[in-house]
């Protein structure tokens, strides 16, 4: 009875993760498609203004009189384009670079993570042990990617915006502490998984 409930919980979790996985793919793909079309839409559809925390942008494709199709929105942190006057900024390039680095790349990391968790729950549903070398490797890889993105993501954004969107070079190093924490926790969890893997191997080879 207890194992049946546990199996049902894992099954529900698996369905939920698969749903979020496919939804993330759809969102990431729509974002990428929107970016492709950004170069062909008129400037009037782009809103780019200085907000409190940074440059706030949104792209609304006009469909007809009084209606518009919302495409993307975001915010470039203040520390990146703070000193640059608006006429020196290539707005479209700035939006593309920021949307790619700040929204699409984290989505891709989430998609990779969800895929691995989905595979893990799928194996658990098939009564396979979750302590497998392939999951250990992927968990380590995801932890490294999250750590790298949290520490260097903002710097990369600064550099790319300087190159493609503004004739002004400024690099600011800002860490995403939550990202660093998630990366470190992921690494610690991968160490625990490695120990679990060792114990599983010992158990399997003890008769």
């Amino acid at each position, binding site marked *: 009875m207890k194992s049946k409930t546990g199996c049902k919980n894992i099954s529900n979790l698996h369905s939920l993760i698969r749903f979020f996985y496919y939804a993330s793919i759809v969102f990431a793909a729509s974002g990428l498609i929107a970016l492709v079309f950004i170069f062909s839409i008129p400037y009037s559809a782009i809103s780019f203004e200085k907000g409190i925390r940074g440059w706030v942008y949104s792209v609304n494709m006009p469909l007809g009189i009084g209606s518009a199709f919302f495409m993307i929105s975001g915010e470039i942190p203040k520390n990146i384009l703070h000193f640059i006057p608006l006429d020196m900024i290539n707005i479209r390039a700035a939006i593309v670079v920021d949307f790619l680095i700040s929204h699409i790349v984290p989505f891709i990391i989430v998609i990779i993570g969800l895929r691995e968790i989905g595979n893990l729950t799928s194996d658990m549903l098939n009564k396979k042990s979750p302590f497998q070398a392939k999951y250990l490797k992927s968990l380590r890889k995801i932890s490294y990617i999250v750590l790298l993105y949290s520490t260097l993501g903002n710097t990369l954004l600064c550099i790319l915006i300087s190159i493609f969107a503004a004739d002004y070079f400024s690099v600011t190093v800002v860490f995403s502490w939550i990202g660093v924490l998630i990366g470190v926790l992921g690494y610690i969890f991968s160490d625990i998984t490695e120990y679990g893997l060792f114990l599983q*191997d010992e158990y399997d080879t003890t008769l």
Partner: protein
Amino acid sequence: MAIIIRLDRILADRKMKLNELARLIDLSPVNLSNIKTGKIKAIRFSTLDAICKTLECQPGEILEYVED
């Protein structure tokens, strides 16, 4: 490994097949074959107990230490 399992010798002495011993001690032939060929890291006391009881032997007759 320095510990060698001499199950094949005991089985030959008792004129018993591996499958028969596996059936008597309630272990799968594959697992017993792994024990016989030394493809294991450890052996449970319960397994050793069942083997010794069935083959009427001492653990020392099954396990042998050989210096590397």
